[in-house]
């Protein structure tokens, strides 16, 4: 039999628009292309704007991880204005940040991922679900299904915590350069604590056992969708008056078992197989080119020291020594759920530590001390980086590298693959009818965000 090509398009239940093409031969995926098919041009839209508009503008890159963009823009501005961040603001920022993580992880697991593994009620929007390879017993299915509705409520509560302090969600207003514009008054802290308790109970009683159940029943997925063990994290939860401390360390993990600190100068972006052409002349002048021959995605290629790296909760958990497993589909799912539990515990501690106050913890300097800055942090899906060059108070150049750029990079000229394409290639599938399901499970385990990746 000659190789056959399959399109999974649209690959639904993710953020944004994605098509995946796989070449299937002799029971094995021998090639895969992950094609991100939307492009807006945020790096162009950022030019000439006042630099303080970056927090609200860049949040519009992404709906599901919007605060992450606002946060990294704020860190960037803190550096440009040399702000001092008060202890209260540090705690409050991280409470808000973690709340947005909870919302993301819960929605990913229950709304996007569960229909890959569990038979849903045959009502819309779950009609015509692919029923191949759904392995739970009717009792197990009965137990999990009501959790989907509860997860919708729990994720809403996570955004309610964010909104109590942030004004709205997504695209919050108060986490800005210099701190947070809302005071952590006792009523707000109390409301947040009780909301968190309910979320935490859900995570303990539903998310963790449900994840365990999937891990037990779909054990083979600990061997499906493996990537090379090259993992990267920029670290998570910034503390210190200059955002200089990280609660969860950053790291590059290659073949070595000890992670090293990432050197940002080793990051390189390219557009060989992306829908962009390079203009001649100085600088990195790109122009979008949706008919470029040989190109297949709006995501650029990003590499660290010449190689592709996987980012996300699994990378964070392994780099910080909290997870000992491999780099498979199920490892990514399990690590994300375990991280969710840890986040609720951290938030609990921070809400206990924070001193109630009626003064917003915000001090914004008004004089720029730098004209250029680069800031890395981890977001929900992994390593996120914003960098800016100014002319006066206005943006001359703004560059964004999101987590899904790392995981869904366009392949390079020599055919080196992104983590997601690597995870797909080499997968054996016993019958054609399992192809859709298997590809969907592998791809979704990365929690792709295509709006972010293409921006």
């Amino acid at each position, binding site marked *: 039999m000659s190789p056959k090509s399959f399109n999974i398009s649209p690959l639904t*239940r993710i953020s944004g628009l994605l098509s995946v093409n796989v070449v299937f031969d002799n029971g094995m995926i021998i090639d895969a292309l992950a094609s991100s*098919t939307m*492009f807006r041009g945020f790096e162009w839209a950022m030019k000439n704007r006042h630099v303080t508009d970056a927090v*609200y503008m860049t949040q519009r890159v992404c*709906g599901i991880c919007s605060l992450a963009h606002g946060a990294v823009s704020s860190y960037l501005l803190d550096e440009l204005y040399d702000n001092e961040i008060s202890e209260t603001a540090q705690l409050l920022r991280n409470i808000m940040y973690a709340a947005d993580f909870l919302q993301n992880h819960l*929605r990913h697991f229950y709304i996007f991922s569960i229909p890959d593994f569990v038979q849903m009620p045959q009502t819309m929007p779950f009609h015509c*679900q692919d029923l191949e390879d759904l392995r739970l017993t009717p009792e197990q299915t009965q137990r999990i299904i009501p959790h989907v*509705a509860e997860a919708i409520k729990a994720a809403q509560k996570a955004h309610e915590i964010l909104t109590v302090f942030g004004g709205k969600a997504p695209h919050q207003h108060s986490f800005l350069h210099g701190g947070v*514009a809302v005071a952590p008054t006792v009523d707000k802290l109390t409301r947040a604590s009780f909301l968190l308790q309910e979320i935490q109970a859900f995570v303990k009683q539903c998310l963790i056992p449900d994840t365990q159940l999937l891990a037990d029943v779909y054990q083979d997925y600990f061997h499906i969708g493996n990537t090379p063990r090259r993992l990267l994290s920029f670290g998570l939860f910034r503390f210190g008056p200059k955002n200089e401390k990280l609660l969860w360390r950053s790291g590059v993990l290659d073949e070595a078992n000890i992670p090293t600190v990432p050197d940002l100068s080793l990051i390189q972006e390219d557009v060989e197989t992306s829908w962009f052409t390079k203009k001649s002349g100085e600088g990195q002048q790109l122009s979008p080119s949706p*008919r470029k021959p040989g190109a297949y995605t709006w995501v650029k290629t990003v590499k660290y020291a010449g190689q592709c790296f996987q980012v996300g909760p699994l990378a964070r958990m392994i780099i910080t020594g909290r997870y000992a497993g491999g780099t498979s589909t199920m490892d990514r799912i399990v690590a994300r759920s375990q991280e969710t539990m840890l986040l609720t515990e951290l938030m609990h501690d921070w809400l206990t530590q924070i001193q109630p106050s009626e003064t917003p913890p915000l001090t914004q300097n008004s004089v720029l001390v730098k004209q250029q800055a680069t800031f890395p942090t981890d977001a929900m899906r992994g390593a996120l980086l914003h960098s800016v060059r100014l002319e006066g108070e206005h943006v001359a150049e703004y560059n964004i590298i999101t987590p899904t750029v790392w995981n869904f990079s366009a392949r390079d000229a020599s055919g080196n693959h992104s983590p997601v394409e690597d995870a797909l290639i080499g997968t054996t599938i016993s019958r054609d009818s399992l192809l859709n399901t298997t590809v969907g499970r592998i791809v979704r385990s990365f929690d792709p965000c295509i709006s972010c990746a293409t921006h």
Partner: protein
Amino acid sequence: MDWEAFLAFCRKNRASNTQQITETVLPAVSQFLAHTGQPKLPVIWLETNDSGDNNIAFMNSTYPYAEQVFANMIDLLYSNTFMAAQGEDALQILFAAAEQYKGEFTLVVEGAIPTKDDGLYCVIAQTPTHRITALEAVQWLGSLAKHVVAVGTCASFGGPTSAEPNITSSVGVSAVLTREVIHVSGCPVNPDWFVGTLAHLMMYGMPELDELGRPALFFENTVHRHCQRRSYFDKKDYAEQLGDEKCMFSLGCMGPRTHADCPYRQWINYVNWPVRANTPCIGCTTPNFPDGSAPFFTPLPQKRPGQAPQDSPAEKESPP
């Protein structure tokens, strides 16, 4: 529930008794469905070029929660975000639904429509031989739908996707259709505005729209008019810095030019909104957002010349 009662109910919704919506509206909807024998509102939801914030906003709906909307109000035939099916199956569902519910379904579009290079900057699905662009899909489905709802500011007016220099030549949905489009703007949309519009369509048909095509029920007044800090404005007591509990006009507030009910409806289970969070309203429901609001922290009269939208001919709250 009669139409006037429904409108009155939507208008006066407050934080004090959020359960009331579920308790009042859902039984009314069920009763309506039972009484008329009508099916739920059939909906095809297309995601085009935005940040996905509007489907997140929908998931933040409380009373009814998203799953209650699915169970009681709409039949979500197609949605890139929510449907279980994927790939070829999903595309077949879209084609079949468009045919079967022709003239009946409500088309919801989330995101702007790029028009440059034949719309190739947004492809909703690709077959081995063809990239189905958002432009194509919206024009095709827009011609078959009973109602078209643009959800969010990108779909309504272009929004951040069409921000200068708009290298993809993106526009709002109505710019690529020749029919009426309901603009439920907001960046993101407030879930009440969206779910309330769907409820109105299902039970009473077209809602009354303002001159910009937005449901008057949610967008008839300016933010400024109902702002809790209006008394500070009237006394010219302006905030000096972000975080001050005073009028945010001095820090770029777009409230006087922005039509939305944020001050009394608020966000995410009705707990807060931007001005209450001691920051300016940035006018995210306006047709020129974000460029017309930029720079965000510069007072209205000094924003970029010619950019500030005059979206209300009857504007009465001009700054002093």
